[in-house]
């Protein structure tokens, strides 16, 4: 397979050589705005994702203020937010809008678009040895659909009735009925439109990633010689392609119910606000949840797999050791990909789902823990007897493993339907998914940014700021989310504006204050990272060697500032897997080096 495309590569080369000189004369718009260079598109995704992350994080700071200090008013909030915080207090509708937007933005626009969008685009061509994506045009469109979705989502913050406020899962009937919640009026239409654009973007990107990995690998790059990052991004794309359309179909039915008078999800509804019984009968609100979670669960892995892949790669490079159990790593990612489609109903144990059906989903859900455990033990063995360099990327990769363990283990609680009856929709769930897919995916993303920043911009980020960023964020993440498990074990429900009127949950006032304070500090530290990022693009220490980390993979054989086409001259040929570190007394052997006669076998 890997030999078949040599021709394609050559024609690319010719194209590149002929036009090489013209690249300097590209207009600003075609080079940086409507660019078809995968590296520029990756940066566009990254920076858009970062802007979203700041906004989404800021939203959490605002609602954490309310949760931590429910009886206080903050007049300056009104100065910033106007009607959202009349009299210095966040109103219920805006609290719920903030919670909803925080979830939507971080899950989709940051950890899906921002994470796979950035690293699939940046790494796939560079690590498989391709000039660009299979279809650079589709790739560009993928970003601009993402951008359009972002604009529509952003605009929903400014409509009179407010953005959608029924939780990021958007369960109908709440999301279908404007009379049940002001956020479900025009805000919800914008939300659906933005999400539809997002799905289009994700599909264009995903198809491209898959076809590039399958067809554009350089000579010698068999599938089993791919770095684990590429495997992870490949499985991520497959997950997205197969599950996002189902989400879109769910949204379309929702749109029909909203505006077309259909009853897919609606039945037996009386709206107190208007004193009216609705005409709909015979729909099932649960149908939506099936459609939603058929994406929603794979989505968790869409977020997590790239982080796993990058952590694997970075751990190996900085341990100066091969990743332990390469084939087991690929196999476990494959198992996760398959199982991801078979566990969605574990989000629905308490919807009145048939208990027998529920039991099947318990079994399949807990099965996922097996490949996850394999990965954890392989990571641990990778750093065993290593020679570790604590680069910022390495620190975040280690942090990723720690968080993945912590959050993964609580998944064993929630995946077990018996315990889910008690813990469902409590703070235990918040703690679980924030650790395992929120913070840990962020750690994977940070690891990736710090590790590949020199390749992206030809400069280093500031190490001291990176170290501060890492330690404060790691400690902060645990301080915020660890105690939330206890709130969950008290049965404290999610998505409440105020707990002070509840005899069962008002004992956590001090804890909520503490969590909010830490959240604010951690958010401020992220701004330090953002500053470090942008400052270093222009003023960071310059990269002087082609391969600063001493890594084996192909991206480090490209020039420090690769042009469109990545390699000058021929694309390098690959002769070995990506993990020959500390072999035969050598620090590392690049993938491009032919296997010598007296080399030991692994």
């Amino acid at each position, binding site marked *: 397979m890997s030999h078949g495309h040599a021709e394609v590569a050559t024609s690319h080369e010719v194209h590149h050589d002929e036009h090489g000189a013209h690249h300097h004369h590209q207009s600003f718009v075609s080079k940086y705005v409507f660019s078809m260079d995968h590296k520029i598109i990756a940066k566009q995704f990254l920076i858009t994702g970062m802007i979203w992350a700041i906004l989404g994080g800021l939203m959490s700071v605002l609602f954490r203020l309310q949760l931590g200090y429910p009886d206080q008013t903050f007049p300056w909030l009104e100065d910033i937010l106007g009607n959202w915080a009349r009299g210095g207090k966040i109103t219920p509708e805006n609290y719920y809008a903030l919670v909803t937007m925080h979830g939507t933005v971080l899950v989709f626009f940051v950890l899906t678009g921002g994470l796979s969008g950035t690293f699939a685009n940046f790494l796939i061509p560079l690590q498989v040895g391709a000039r660009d994506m299979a279809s650079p045009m589709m790739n560009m469109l993928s970003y601009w659909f993402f951008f359009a979705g972002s604009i529509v989502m952003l605009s929903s913050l400014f409509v009179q009735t407010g953005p959608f406020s029924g939780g990021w899962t958007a369960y109908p009937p709440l999301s279908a009925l404007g009379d049940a919640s002001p956020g479900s009026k025009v805000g919800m239409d914008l939300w659906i439109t933005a999400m539809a654009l997002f799905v289009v973007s994700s599909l264009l990107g995903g198809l491209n990633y898959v076809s590039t990995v399958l067809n554009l690998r350089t000579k010698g790059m068999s599938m089993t010689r791919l770095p684990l990052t590429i495997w992870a991004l490949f499985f991520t794309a497959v997950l997205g392609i197969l599950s996002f359309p189902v989400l879109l179909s769910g949204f379309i039915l929702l749109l029909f119910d909203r505006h077309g008078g259909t009853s897919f999800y609606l039945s037996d509804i009386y709206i107190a606000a208007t004193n009216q019984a609705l005409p709909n009968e015979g729909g099932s609100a649960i149908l939506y949840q099936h459609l939603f979670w058929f994406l929603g669960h794979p989505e968790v892995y869409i977020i997590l797999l790239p982080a796993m892949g990058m952590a694997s790669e970075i751990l190996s490079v900085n341990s100066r050791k091969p990743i332990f159990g390469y084939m087991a790593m690929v196999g476990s990612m494959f198992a996760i990909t398959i199982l991801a489609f078979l566990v969605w109903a574990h989000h629905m144990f308490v919807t009145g789902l048939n208990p027998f059906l529920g039991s099947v989903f318990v079994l399949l859900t807990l099965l996922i823990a097996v490949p996850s455990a394999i990965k954890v033990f392989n990571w641990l063995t990778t750093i065993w007897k290593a020679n570790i360099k604590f680069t910022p990327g390495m620190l975040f990769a280690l942090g990723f493993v720690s968080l993945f363990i912590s959050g993964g283990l609580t998944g064993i609680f929630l995946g077990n339907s018996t315990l889910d009856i*008690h813990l*469902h929709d409590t703070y235990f769930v918040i703690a679980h998914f924030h650790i395992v897919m929120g913070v840990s995916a962020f750690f994977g993303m940070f690891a990736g940014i710090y590790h590949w920043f020199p390749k992206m911009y030809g400069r280093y980020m500031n190490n001291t700021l990176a170290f501060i960023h890492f330690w404060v964020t790691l400690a902060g993440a645990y301080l915020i989310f660890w105690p939330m498990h206890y709130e969950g074990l008290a049965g404290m429900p999610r998505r409440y504006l105020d707990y002070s009127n509840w005899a069962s949950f008002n004992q956590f006032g001090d804890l909520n204050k503490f969590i909010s304070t830490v959240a604010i500090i951690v958010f401020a530290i992220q701004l330090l990272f953002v500053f470090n990022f942008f400052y270093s693009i222009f003023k960071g220490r310059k990269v002087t060697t082609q391969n600063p980390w001493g890594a084996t993979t192909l991206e480090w054989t490209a020039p420090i500032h690769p042009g469109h086409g990545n390699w000058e001259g021929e694309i390098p040929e690959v002769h070995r897997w990506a993990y020959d570190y500390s*072999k035969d007394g050598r620090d590392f052997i690049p993938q491009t080096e032919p296997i010598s006669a007296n080399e030991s076998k692994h």
Partner: protein
Amino acid sequence: MTTTGLFLLAILALGFLITFQIAKASEYVSVLKGEKKSFEQNNRINGFLMVVFLVLGIIGVYWCNKALYHKTLMPFPSASEHGENIDTMLKITLLITGIVFFITQILLFWFAYKYQHSDKRRAFYYPHNNKLELIWTTVPAITLCILVGFGLYYWFKITGEAPQDAMQVEITGRQFGWIYRYPGKDNTFGKKYFRMIDEANGNMLGMVWKDSTMETPNGVRNLKADAAGFDDIITTTAMVLVKDQPVKLIINSRDVIHDVGLPHFRLKMDAVPGTPTTLWFTPKFTTEEMKKITNNPNFEYEIACDQMCGNGHYSMKGLIKVVKRDEFILWRAKQEPGYKPAATAAPAPAAAPAPQPAVVDSAAHVTTKK
């Protein structure tokens, strides 16, 4: 912007500036010192911090548990038998995951510290070992089978059929409160139909208390008054249950999805409009007993809505009072049925603007025959 706001912002900006200057300076220092030396120094610091983090983390876990354990439900017995099963399951899971948690986290941070870079050493080339991988595939698989086994055993116990003698109570969610209904003396719930809901005349649930004719797109529908509903008790104050008497909740929603969350009984079930759900359990302690057990004179069995249902979600509180049997009989004797003949005499405004209902007898699911 207020002065406090400006002041805070200024402090934040100053903090950033100082941190940045230090960071920048350290970069220059490292250039002066030589890259190798400063790398080694940083590596030692970060390696050391790995152990510090591990130790502080373990202390933190202990301390957090000490500070928060008594605020959870775990020190107190569950108020239902199902909840006892759930508590047992929780303990088994905690034990197994706890062991794994400590072993893996300690290994992770300890390895990171121990195998930090040294010029004297070279990393051990160790790409795979099939035996090891087989071990950590099968051991987790077997452990999880144990957890699945226990879990499903309890799950089927909890979700199984309610006992024959279970008392039946209907609970209906609406934005933002709960309505409770008891079948009355005849032990049979009367029929209801959501288009009959008439808040102004005290018909919150849409009981079919009177004959009614409705225009629908499918033709005119005739609803016959259901006498079984005349004695149904409808209240929004509290759900009164009997200690040691199994109860089956029939759960409905009038508008959006809600969730009957019963933290003290460790139970939960969604209220879905159009699709009634059920949940059964046996309360073990009266409210008064729970006040003593929890050492909290203000203790109440609160029903918390656990499914995002709109802007008043956080205030959607219900109440369960668990009492002794004789108290319950006394309470029920004092309740008046929701049906008021006077209310039916008034003209029915609900029927007038009624658009197009395809009449389905939604009460059919919940009627009980005793």
